[in-house]
Every structure is written in C-alpha cells, then in structure tokens.
C-alpha cells in the first residue's frame, strides 16, 4: 500500500504544531542562546562563539555540580532500585496487609518534590529535627550507662549545613521517595512473570535464590531497563530537592547542574552561560532518553 491516506497526517498536524512551538523551538533557541552573552533583559545579544563553554569547563562549580549529579546517578541506580525490587518481591507473595503496605511504600511518590524537600529539611534540622533529637536522646541514654559521649554533640550535626553531609542527606531523601516508584514498576513486571517456568524450576529443585536469579530476574529485564533509565533521568534532572533544601550550598557542595543553571539564569542574569549549562545537561540526558525511547518503541512493536 504505497498510497497513504491524508487523514492521519492531518490529525497529527495540531499536536505536531504545538510540539514544535513548545518543545522543539525552545530547545533550539536555548542551543542558540548558549553561543551568546545575553543577560536576559537587554535586546542586545552578541555572538560569543564557544566562550561560554570554555568558561564552563574552567568553572569549579560546574565540575562540582557534574560530580554531584554523577554521585546521584550512582547511588540511585544501586540503592533505591534494589530496595524497590526487594520490596516488590516481598509484597508479591500475598503477605498479610500487602495492599496497605504497597500503598504505604508508594505514598511518598504522591507527594510533590517541594513537600518532600520541606519535610526532610525539618527532619534534618540540627536543633529541632527528628534525627538529631533522636540521637540526642540515644546519646543521653548511652551517657547514663557510663559511655563517654556528649549528648549536646548530637545537636551539632549539620545534615544540610556540613559540606561533607549535605549532598548525601539530599540523596537519601530522594531515595526515600524513589523506592516506592521502583517497587510499583517491578510489581507490575512481576505480574507478567510466567508461573509455569517457576513451577518447573521448583520441580527441578532450584533454590529460591536460583529461581530468582535464573527464572524471575531475566523475565524482568524489560522492566529493569525502564527502571534504570527512569532512575538515571531522575538523577540528572534533580533540582527541586536541592533548590528547596540547600540551594546548592554550603558553597556549592550540594549543587547539581539544574540548580547551577537556575542560579546563573535567574539570579546572575547570565542567560547565555546558563543556556550552555543546559546544553551540556541535555547532551548527557539525551543518551539515556534515546535508550529509553528505543526500548519503549521496541516493546510496543512486539
């Protein structure tokens, strides 16, 4: 059938037009901006070639932020993914209250990032926060048992104020939220696992670990790909938690690329420079997004 009807194309026109105006054009415009020195206000903008990128690659804050993004990726593709998978496996076995537990674990996902950020900022507060208050009482207990600890020290731990702890504290809060998401994805995936294969394995005397490793997990491969790609994209686009909890501080120790870009664009009025950061972030993300799209398309064709 070489002759294609016009109808589908005409139906596509409107969404494509909107997509072009709202997504493709801004993306291209941002890329063009990255080669200018526009300050966000003046009509004047001069072409500066690669100067923004040259400055970027010599900027300590850029490397700090990129490093933090990579740390985020590393933690995210290991901890919340394996926890989510473990939870999904556990809750898939018709345990008691499984419905309640599933909802409980998924609930953080329902909350807006800003709400999570505010909540964890309170939990981490050095004086009144949940963690330090708990530690304070534990230390007090230890002291009364004769151990040489000072309870007051517990209140001095700056989870978000200590440059060595801030990034980890934020990632921990993000992990708390992400686990539920991974769990739901795997729970859905587990429904598609062929039970006949599991039964066959059991008859052949496979241990539970072997069943998981050689029967269940391979069948979850498509889900795992999606989980990994979503996880990586989540880590790269991280902004909300950082912005609300520390604004990238203290002194950029918890900065990430998206927040760095925001600061340059909207606080320092360096639209050109911020666009250069956006382009770099885009190039890093596009690789993962391409894998994701490839997988999705492949699955749909199947």
């Amino acid at each position, binding site marked *: 059938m070489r002759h294609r009807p016009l109808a589908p194309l005409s139906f596509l026109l409107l969404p494509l037009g909107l997509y072009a105006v709202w997504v493709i054009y801004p993306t291209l415009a941002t890329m063009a901006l990255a080669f200018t020195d526009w300050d966000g206000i003046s009509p004047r903008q001069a072409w500066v070639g690669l100067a923004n990128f040259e400055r970027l690659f010599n900027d300590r804050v850029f490397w700090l932020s990129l490093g933090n993004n990579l740390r985020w990726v590393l933690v995210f593709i290991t901890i919340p993914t394996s926890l989510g998978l473990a939870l999904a496996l556990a809750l898939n076995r018709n345990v008691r209250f499984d419905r309640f537990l599933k909802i409980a674990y998924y609930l953080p996902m329902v909350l807006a990032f800003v709400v999570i950020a505010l909540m964890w900022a309170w939990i981490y507060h050095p004086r009144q926060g949940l963690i330090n208050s708990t530690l304070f009482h534990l230390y007090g207990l230890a002291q009364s048992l004769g151990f040489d600890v000072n309870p007051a020290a517990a209140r001095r731990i700056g989870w978000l*104020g200590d*440059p060595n702890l801030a990034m980890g504290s934020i990632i921990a809060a993000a992990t708390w939220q992400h686990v539920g998401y991974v769990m739901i994805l795997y729970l859905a995936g587990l429904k598609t696992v062929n039970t006949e294969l599991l039964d066959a394995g059991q008859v052949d005397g496979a241990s539970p670990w072997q069943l998981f490793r050689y029967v269940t997990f391979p069948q979850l491969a498509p889900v795992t790909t999606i989980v990994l790609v979503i996880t990586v994209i989540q880590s790269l686009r991280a902004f909300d938690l950082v912005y609300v909890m520390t604004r990238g*501080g203290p*002194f950029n120790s918890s900065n990430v690329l998206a927040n760095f870009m925001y600061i340059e664009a909207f606080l320092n009025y360096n639209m050109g420079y911020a666009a250069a950061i956006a382009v770099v972030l885009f190039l890093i993300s596009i690789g993962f997004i391409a894998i994701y799209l490839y997988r999705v398309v492949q699955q749909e064709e199947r």
Partner: protein
Amino acid sequence: MRRIVFASIATLVAVTLAWGAAQSGVLRYNSYMMDPVPRELDAKIVALFMERYPDIRVEHSSVAHEDFKQAIRTYLVASPPPDVLTWFAGERMRFFTRTGLIANITNVWQGSDWEDVYPVGFQSMSQDAGAYYFVPQSYYWWAVYYRTDIYDEVGLEVPETWDAFLDNCRALDAAGYIPVAIGSRYGWPAAGWFDYLNMRVNGPEFHIRLLDGLESYESEEVRNTFAHWKQAMDAGCFIDNPASYDWQDAAEFMIQGEAAMYLMGQFILDVFPADARDSVDFFRFPIIDPDLPVGEDAPTDGYFVSANAANMENAKLFIEFLGSREVNEMWAREAGRLVPRTDLDPNIYPPATRKGLEEILRRADYVAQFYDRDTPEELAGRGMDAFVEFMANPGALDRILADLQREAERVFAARQ
C-alpha cells in the same frame, strides 16, 4: 470679543481635561514589603495617596522579598511593566539603569525640595552618570547585637577593640555560651562579617575599591582580613555549622539565651518576641586599626519608576509623594526606620533607632551599602560562597581567594 471668550473657555476646558488626564487612570505599584510592620505601612501610604488623588486607582501588589528579587527582571521587561517598584540603591539599581529599564527622574528631583533635604551621599547613590533614577525611602544600620543579661552574668564589658572582643568570645565560650550566632545558609550574614573585618582592617576606601574591582582578592590586605577572621574562629567565637541555619534560625539561639552576640542589621529585632527585646542591645563593630576611618554598612531601600511605565505622569506623582516629608515621617514614626530626609525632628524616632543613628551612623566616616549591593551581583554570589566556605574550611583560603579573584577579573572585564 465673544470669540475670544469662547476661545479662552475652550482653552481652559482643554487644559483642565489634559490636567485631569494626568491625574486620573491607573498606577501599578509593586513592592517587596511583606514583614508585618512595613507591609501595613506600605498599604497605608498607598491609601493616603489615593485619598489625595481620588482619580488615580493604584493597583498595589506585594511580593515576598526573596521572590521579588528574582522576579524583578521579568516585571521590568513585561509590557506594560509596573509603573513604580521598590528596590535597592547603588549597584543593584545601576544594573537596571545600564540596561535602560529605569526612568530618568531628574525633573522630579529638581522640581521638589529633595536636593536641599537629602544628604549628598543619598543623592549620589540615587544617580547614575549624573542623572537621578531613584528615591531613597529608608536605611538601617548594622551592629553587633548582644544579650545584656548574658553579658552581665559573665561579667563582660562592651568591647571597643578587637582584642577585647576576642577576650569576650573566650570568656563566653568558657562559660558555656555560643559567643556569636551566625546563620549563613544564604551567604549574606557571612558577607556582613567580611564587610566589617575588611573595613576595619584595611579601611572603607580599600574595601570599596576591592568591591569595584580595583583591588585584588589575593592581595596582602585581603589576606590580612581573613587572618583576623581566623583569629575570631580560633577564639571560639562562632557557632558550629553556621551554614546549617538561615539567619532567623540562628537568631533563635540568641532568643533562647544560648548565644550572646549576632552581627546583623536593625531588622533582627523584628524576630525577637516583645518580652525578649528588653535584654537585647547593640554596639558598634569593634575597632581594629584606630588609624583608619570608620566605615559602616547602612543599606538603603527606595523606589524607582520603570522606563516603559504606561502611566508615567502618575508614576512621577506617586514617587514625588513617596519622597515627601510626610511619607518619610510616617516611616520614621510608625516603623522606626531611619529616613534620609534631614528636615525631620530626630526625636520622632524610637529610642533604639536614635541610638543607632547617634552611636553608629553619626560616628561613621564612610557608609557602605552592603557586600551584595556594592559589588556586581553575580560576583557577590561567588564571594558569599567563598566566605561561607572559608568559615567551614579555613585551610583552603589560597584556593578560595584564587577562584574568587579569577571570577572577579572575568566579571569586571565583561563590564568594560
């Protein structure tokens, strides 16, 4: 004859109409006054203006301070932009005059008594390249605020010199108090320390030259400033992990009676409950080198008119009203703010404000705005990060200053 009468009447009508047109219509005013006291007064002033000019309808919107600072650029490039806005004098204002977004209001200044009653310093901070763009509304001083009850209990005197200050820190530390609270989560409270130390160690002129890009952050002078900062850290002055707290969080230590001192602006009293205010007083930041002129930070807030204001005539009327003696007096009397006009009786100020004026500002040889108002904003962000980093990691000073100096060179080179 009849024709002449008719013509005059017609002219009169036309003039009246034109005059009426100038005084009617809309005026859009955006302000960042959101703390209870200034917010209420701001609304009152707008109401009074509308009473004076019943044909002008003022559309007044108040936006939270931090949000306003970020959004002002979008306001100014909107069409039409707000007609009158609140803003900061000095470098922060000049950023927008350079981009042509602030209206020249030289004729308002010259058509009023302002040049006679605003001190020269306030005139120059309202200008760029010889023209007026701004009208100052109020200013406040910075000082070391301290708990008088803790000072009495430990038996301390108000320190006049740096050594006395360090001794006080040691005594307070030994008595189990946090000598100095500081919440540097957003950087600027640390910039207050830098401003004062640099002005006391190297003099206000050097300080301003540094902030204008004419001196280096890697100079001996600046290193000496940081050496003094290190002395205070070594004397146990500062709270642990200052970057964990925003400025109000850290003030809580002082309110609770755990911390004794806080280098802060006048507005710190706004966060103290009324009953705690009686045990709080302030003193001038100690003198380090008595041979140098004394500099103080006194940030000034005020108003400007958008260059593209849709209601330019109304905007000018309003800003003239805002700079009037009447409005200045309201700020002084009702909000305890220091106002720039000199034709007011100083006795209208509350006692604490009078003390700030007499003991801090009248004794100053030089008045600076504040670090992030005196130096280009994007450099100020890096600078404040640098100060916070120094407080956490003083050993990295060389690298911190080298990074900051490189950034300063880039920012100032881009301005040429």
